[in-house]
């Protein structure tokens, strides 16, 4: 089966006065039809930047380089801004983190929904309105005709995110990129929105990139996971495989931070990884995680740590022996 999206060697550089920042480094993955790939990592790990780089929506200062970027078999890397604009919103829909600020405050919900359809489809206003009503109903918004005439500030956060999802689906995209779609919402709304995304994904047979920092979300919703750290994918596997058998010490440490109800591991205290994600500049080499890693050795400072692959497509970027990493994982799960 041909992948919906093929990404090879995607990097982003941001030149600054003192150094060149490298927020995304050599990211590669495939996404198959109907599949959900989750990008996981802490703030600053380059998840959102990766999504924006694929969409060619990076901030002005940022420079993108990519070996291969193919969407539905078409090469995106060589396309002009105008051609990519034709795909954005039509074939690729995006849902962003904060529904409170992602909708334009001065236009009605209907206006903002319809304009995507009018832009990409050769449709009349009537047809666009009907499509908007259909999708508002699909995302379980009661009284869609009323909501169509309302402004974003008249809607709750949960409703606004439903509107954002409807907007992403207006033109029937093959791919949805959801960038922390529930981070800004309260807990009960979170699961509703995620359930909704999943059921719509199945109904319309879309592939999805789900960006999150929540491994609980990953466990429930993702088919495959790419764990990102400081701009790199450090581990990639099927969700079950990754949760069962984390190879990279960073993945193991992340899993270790999930509190388990009733468990008294770590003496009943919430566990965290000490330190913060470092900013990687062009001069840096070696494993980016080594300063926070409990198992770091001298060899971790060497340049060019390659991706290693186990059976079943389980990949990880660590020079420590697999047995060693497996021990780490075992120990942490004990």
């Amino acid at each position, binding site marked *: 089966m041909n992948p919906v999206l093929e990404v090879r060697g995607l990097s982003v550089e941001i030149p600054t006065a003192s150094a060149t920042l490298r927020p995304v480094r050599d990211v590669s993955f495939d996404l198959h039809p109907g599949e959900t790939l989750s990008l996981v990592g802490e703030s600053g790990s380059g998840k959102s930047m990766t999504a924006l780089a694929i969409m060619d929506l990076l901030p002005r200062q940022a420079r993108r380089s990519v070996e291969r970027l193919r969407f539905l078999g078409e090469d995106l890397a060589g396309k002009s801004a105008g051609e990519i604009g034709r795909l954005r919103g039509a074939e690729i829909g995006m849902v962003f983190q904060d529904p409170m*600020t992602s909708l334009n405050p001065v*236009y009605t919900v209907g206006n903002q929904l319809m304009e995507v359809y009018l*832009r*990409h489809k050769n449709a009349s206003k009537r047809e666009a309105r009907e499509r908007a009503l259909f999708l508002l109903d699909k995302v379980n918004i009661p009284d869609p005709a009323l909501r169509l005439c309302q402004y974003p500030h008249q809607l709750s956060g949960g409703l606004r995110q439903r509107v954002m999802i409807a*907007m992403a689906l207006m033109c029937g995209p093959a791919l949805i990129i959801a960038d922390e779609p529930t981070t800004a919402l309260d807990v009960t709304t979170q699961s509703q929105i995620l359930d909704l995304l999943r059921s719509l994904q199945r109904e319309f047979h879309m592939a999805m990139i789900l960006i999150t920092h929540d491994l609980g979300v990953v466990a429930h919703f993702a088919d495959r996971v790419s764990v990102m750290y400081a701009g790199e994918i450090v581990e990639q596997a099927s969700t079950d495989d990754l949760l069962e058998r984390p190879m990279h010490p960073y993945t193991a440490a992340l899993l270790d931070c999930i509190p388990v109800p009733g468990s008294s591991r770590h003496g009943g205290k919430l566990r965290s990884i000490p330190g913060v994600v470092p900013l990687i500049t062009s001069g840096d080499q070696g494993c980016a995680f080594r300063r926070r890693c409990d198992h770091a050795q001298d060899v971790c400072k060497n340049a060019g740590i390659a991706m290693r692959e186990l059976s079943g497509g389980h990949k990880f970027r660590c020079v420590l022996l697999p047995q060693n990493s497996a021990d780490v994982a075992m120990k942490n799960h004990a």
Partner: protein
Amino acid sequence: MAAFALRRVLLAALVAITVSAIAFGLLYLSGDPVRALAGENATDEVIQRLSQEYGFDRPIGEQFLSWLGKAVTGDFGKSIYFNTDVAEMIWDRLPITMALGVMALGFAICLSIPLGVLAALRPNTFVDKAALTISLFGQALPNFWFAILLIILFGLTLRWLPISGNSSFAHFILPAVALGYYATPAFMRLIRAEMMDVLASDYIRTARAKGLSTSSVLFKHALRNAIIPVVSLAAVQLGFMLGGSVIIEQVFAIKGLGALAWESISRSDYPVVQALVLVISVIYVGLTLCADLLNAAIDPRLRHGH
């Protein structure tokens, strides 16, 4: 929207009444108006008579109410200097100053919006720096001097435009440019700052993620949000231009409100000064009200009381 408009109108009326009290008080700022009216060598008897004739012997509250009551009907009394109807003097001059102010504002906006948007789109580039330089000149040059430069270039050297009087549209071009240029920097910098804020906002990223055309992202989604504070500034600036065109009207020999104010102050013609302060203030309040209503039309959050 109706409730919002009603609230704003009531507020504006309150401000107008306060301003009128201040305008009325002006008369007493420079000492006893009757003595000024009667002249240096007047006897007590003359002063007494004048005081009765003009109603200065009544309690001040009563005087104010009677003055305000007349002012509301458009009766501002008579000029002390010319003994003519003050209202007529003002109505003769008002359209001239209004035309000048509106043209100057139009010039300022036509120049500053494109420059501000360009500067915001290309921050820290040549375009941005050029726009900043233009705006710095506007702020640094005194407008009477800039007016003289315009007169020398376009009036005397090139002979394209008339340099004094107000008998045709062409007469207003140089004064409007001189007056408007001074307001340009404030507009340009506000638009630049607002556009940069808006362009970095989440909803602009959404608009781009929807694949909308650049012009739709820029004009439909960004500019409408960036323009909101500009509307308020435009009202304030037009108010300044109406009240502050005194110097420009002098330079170009335009017989507007500014010139009338200047002449009346130097002649100690208090009823005229009083009426001018009131009229200009009420226009100013009216402009602010218009800006509020216009902004409410642009931004739904304002009319829903957010």
